[in-house]
C-alpha cells in the first residue's frame, strides 16, 4: 500500500516537473515572439508583460515537489553528516515531518489565497482583465506537490527505505 502511495506521489511530482518545463518553454517563446513583433511588426503583444509575470512565478514554484523528489533542494548537511549512522533515520524523519508541516501550511495558504480571489472575482488591472484566481490557483500546485513529496519521504522512511540523497552542502 505504502509503495503504491509513494509511486502515485512520484507520478504527480513528475507531472508537475513536466508542467514546469512547459511554463519555461512558454516563457522563452513568449519573450521571443514579443521581441520579433515589436521590432519587426511594430506591434507589442498586449498581454506579454502580464503573462511573463505569471509564467515566472509558475516556473519558480510548480516544480518544487519534483525537485524534492530529485533531491535538488539545498540542505546544510555539515552537522547532519556527523550524526552517528543509527540516529540519522530519526533526524531524517524529523526534518521530513517538519517539511510536511511547513509545506502543508504554505500550500494551504496559497489555496486559500486563490479561492478567496475566485470568490471575489478579482481580475488583473491589465487590458486582458484575466481572472487572477487562475494563476493564483496554479501557483498553489507547486507547494502542494512539495507537501506530497515530503509525505512520500516520511512513508519511505517509516517503511525502512532510505530518503533520496540530497544535494548536500
Amino acid at each position, binding site marked *: 500500500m505504502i509503495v503504491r502511495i509513494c509511486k502515485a506521489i512520484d507520478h504527480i511530482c513528475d507531472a508537475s516537473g513536466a508542467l514546469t518545463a512547459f511554463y519555461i518553454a512558454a*516563457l522563452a517563446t513568449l519573450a521571443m515572439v514579443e521581441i520579433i513583433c515589436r521590432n519587426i511588426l511594430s506591434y507589442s503583444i498586449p498581454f506579454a508583460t502580464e503573462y511573463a*509575470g*505569471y509564467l*515566472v512565478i509558475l516556473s*519558480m514554484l510548480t516544480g518544487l515537489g519534483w525537485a524534492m523528489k530529485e533531491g535538488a533542494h539545498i540542505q*546544510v548537511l555539515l552537522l547532519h553528516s556527523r550524526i552517528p549512522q543509527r540516529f540519522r533515520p530519526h533526524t531524517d524523519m524529523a526534518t521530513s515531518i*517538519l*517539511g510536511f508541516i511547513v509545506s502543508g501550511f504554505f500550500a494551504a495558504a496559497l489555496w486559500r489565497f486563490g479561492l478567496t480571489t475566485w470568490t471575489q472575482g478579482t481580475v488583473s488591472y491589465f487590458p486582458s482583465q484575466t481572472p487572477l484566481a487562475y494563476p493564483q490557483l496554479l501557483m498553489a500546485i507547486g507547494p502542494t506537490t512539495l507537501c506530497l513529496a515530503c509525505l512520500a519521504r516520511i512513508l519511505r522512511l517509516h517503511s525502512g527505505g532510505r530518503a533520496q540523497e*540530497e*544535494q548536500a552542502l
Partner: protein
Amino acid sequence: MVFLFIVLLGAGFWIGMALLAVGAGSLSLFRDSDVGAFLAGDMWRSLNAPELAALPLFILMGELLYRTKLADALFEGLRPWLSGLRGGLIHTNVVACTLFAAVSGSSAATTATVGRITLKQLESRGYSRDLALGSLCGAGTLGFLIPPSIILIIYGVLADTSIIDLFVAGIVPGLVLALSYMVYIAIAAGRQPGGSASWAERLKGLALLGPVFGLIAVVIGSMYAGIAGPTEAAAVGVFGALVITIIQRSASLSSLKDALMGTVRTCAMIGLIVAGAFFLSKVVAIFQLPQAAADMISGLGLSPIALIALLLVFYVALGMVMDGLSIIVMTLPIALPLVQNAGFDPVWFGIFIVIVVEMSQITPPVGFNLFIVQEMTGESIARIARASLPFFLIIAAFVAVMTLFPGLITWHL
C-alpha cells in the same frame, strides 16, 4: 529567530523551508496577524515579477550550452592564442571560464563545463596539476560576476536595484580578476611546454571561438541596441544557444528535454529559497531588525572601511558552511541598509557581496566549486582547496582595492 534558524539548518532542514518556517513561526508567536494570508499575498506580489524572467531563461541558456561541444571549441580556439604565453595553456582555464561566464551566469555550470575539457588536456600535456585545479576553481567563480549573472539578477530584485546597472558594474571587476589570475599563473607556472602557434593556427582558432563571441554579442548587443530588455535578452540567448546546438549537431529531443528538466531543477531550488527569503525579509522588517542592527553597528562607531572589513570576515566565515545564494538572500535585509547608511551604493554592494560569494565557492569545508572539481577529478577537497588558496587571496586583495576605489564599480552610474 536566529536561534531557531540555526537549529533548523543544523538539523539538516532545507534552507528555503527553514526561511519560511522561521518567518511564519515568528509572526505567529509575536504578532497577531493572519500569517497564511500575509505569506500568500507576499509570495504573489514578490514572485509575480516579469524582471525575474531573466532567471529561468539564462539558466536554460546555460543548460543548453552545457550539452553542446562549446567547451571543446573554446579550448581548441584558445590554444593557439595562449600557448605562447608564460604559463601556457593553464590560461585556457581563465579565458575559457571568462568567456563561458559571459554566456552562462552560473559559477557551477562554468566550472563544470570548462573543467570537463581543460583538466584532461592540461594533464596530458604535463602541466602542474595544482595550478590547473586552482585556476579552474578560481576562474570558475567568475560565472557569478560576469554578466549575465543569476546571482546578480536575484540581488537586483531583492535590493530593488537596476539589473542592467549591476550587469555593467560586474564587467570591470570580472575582467580585472581574470587578468590578475593570468598574471599569477604566469608568475607561478613560468615557461611551460607548448610554444607559439602560427598565425594560420590562430585564425583557425578564432573561427572556433565564433559561436561564443557571436552569442555574447547577440545577448549584450540586443540589450544595448534597445532591441530587448534584460529579460528579453535572456530569451535571445536561449534561441542563440538553440542555434548553436543545431549548428554543432548536438540538438536532439532528449538533450532539449534534459536541458529543460535541468532548468526546472535549478529554478525550483532557487524558487524555494527566494520565496522564503522574500517572506523572511518582510518579517524581519516588521520586527524592525535592520534598524536595530544598524543602531547596534553605529554604536560601535565603525568607519565605513572597518564596516566592510567586518562584513568581509563575517561573509567569508559564513561562506565556509553555506552556499552563496543562501548567504545573500538571508543576510541582505539587514546588511543592505547597514552599508547604505555607511554611504555605499547598492550597486557597489551588489558586486561586493557577489565577489565575497565567489570566495565562498572555494572555501572548505563547503565550497561548490571544490565539490565540482572533486567530482571530476577524484582529488581530495583539502588538495583542491590548497590549490585554490592563491586565487582566494587574489579575490580578497581585489575586495580591498574595490573598497578603496569604489569608482571601479560605480563608474557608469
